[in-house]
Each structure stands twice: as structure tokens, then as C-alpha cells.
């Protein structure tokens, strides 16, 4: 029977009063891969809100590093590449896009000069998609749905 009762990640039964396992145990900080909430907010401000050019990010970090009273002279990001790579390293909600081209199964066998063949049969189309399993993993593991999900539909 599919009962919708709590199990561990290997499908073994858990006692009814077991506490829920912690999500993403490999990430010590909820702000990973950023060092802190402030690092995340700074990256969001620079990259997302301000859309600052790379050279200006470098200059800002240079000024930041030489700011008097700033404890060890280390800026939040060493340069714009460090900031970009931190953003790219965000694994939360990440499902890479792929965009293969496809054409009609008959396309290769159609005569090129026959005007009675509809043009869509000869055209190549771009299909953009990402991995459905990753998307569904994200949907099912979303803590917002905790009390609004049917474990045995």
C-alpha cells in the first residue's frame, strides 16, 4: 500500500514521532555559496539592482579594501569574477537549460525543389528546456508546500 507515511531518504519507515530530517545538510549556511547574508545582499545590489559594469565592481572592491578602519583589508569579493562565480555557484533552484534543434522526421527525405512540400516540414526549430526530474525535485522539496501536499495522491 502507498500510505504516505514518513520514511527516511532510503525508503525505510520512520517512527511516527520522528522529527523531520534537515533539508540540504551539506550546506552549513543558508546563504551558501555566499559567506553571509550581507555578502548575498551586496551581490544582489551590485549585479541585479545596479547592473554595475565589471570594471566598476573591481574599483569598488579596491576602495573597500583600502577603507580606513576596515578590519583586515579584505573586500567582500576580491574582484568582479569572484562575484560572478559566487552567483554561478548558487545551487538553489538550479536547473541548467539546454536548447537542441529539431526538425520533422521526414525532413531528410523530402525533395528540396518540390513546392508542394509545406515549408514547416523542412524548417529547423529550436526547443529550449531543462531537466524535468530536477524541476520536480525542486517542487516536491519546497518547504512552502509542507502542509499543502498529498503524500499519497
Amino acid at each position, binding site marked *: 500500500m502507498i500510505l504516505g507515511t514518513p520514511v527516511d531518504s532510503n525508503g525505510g519507515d520512520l517512527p511516527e514521532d520522528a522529527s523531520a530530517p534537515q533539508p540540504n545538510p551539506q550546506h552549513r549556511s543558508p546563504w551558501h555559496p555566499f559567506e553571509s547574508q550581507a555578502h548575498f545582499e551586496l551581490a544582489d545590489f551590485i549585479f541585479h539592482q545596479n547592473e554595475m559594469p565589471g570594471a566598476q565592481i573591481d574599483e569598488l572592491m579596491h576602495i573597500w579594501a583600502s577603507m580606513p578602519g576596515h578590519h583586515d583589508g579584505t573586500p567582500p569579493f576580491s574582484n568582479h569574477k569572484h562575484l560572478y562565480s559566487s552567483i554561478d555557484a548558487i545551487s538553489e533552484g538550479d536547473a541548467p537549460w539546454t536548447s537542441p534543434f529539431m526538425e520533422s522526421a521526414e525532413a531528410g527525405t523530402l525533395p528540396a525543389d518540390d513546392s508542394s512540400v509545406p515549408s514547416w516540414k523542412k524548417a529547423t526549430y529550436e526547443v*529550449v528546456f531543462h531537466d524535468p526530474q530536477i524541476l*520536480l525535485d525542486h517542487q516536491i522539496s519546497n518547504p512552502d*508546500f509542507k502542509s499543502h501536499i498529498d503524500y499519497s495522491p
Partner: protein
Amino acid sequence: MLLIKTDSNGYLKNELSNDPDNHGAMFVPIILGSDKTTVSVATGNNEYYPIYISTGNVHNGMRCAHGEAVSLLGFLAIPK
């Protein structure tokens, strides 16, 4: 997107539950949906055929109210 539970769902679930290897697994019905949307850009018109993916586990109310219960799985772009 609203879903109505049907008997075929229950039939499939009972079939799956007969296999002892499925013990501890969760049955996740997959829902796909599509529509056509026309997007005008400076260089001309494209028709986009998006396909959306969701699961039958999240409650209807949540699927309608919460953007993250339905994901864009992919799209086909057709230049006009």
C-alpha cells in the same frame, strides 16, 4: 490549473503498491500543460509554445496561489 481526481489514478497507485520494491516510495503523478503565446520583439514576431510541468501531490489551492508549484519545463520558438 485545477485537477479532478479520477479512478485511473487509484488503479495505477494500487498496481504500483503491489511491487515490494516501491515500499517507502512516493507516487508523484506528473502534469503537463501547454498553451500558445505570441511575443512581439523589435525584429519581428515569434510564437512561443511553452510547456509547463507540475505534480499531482501539491494541493489545488496551492498550485493556483503559488508560482513555484508549476514550472516552465521548456518552450518551442517559431519565428513568423
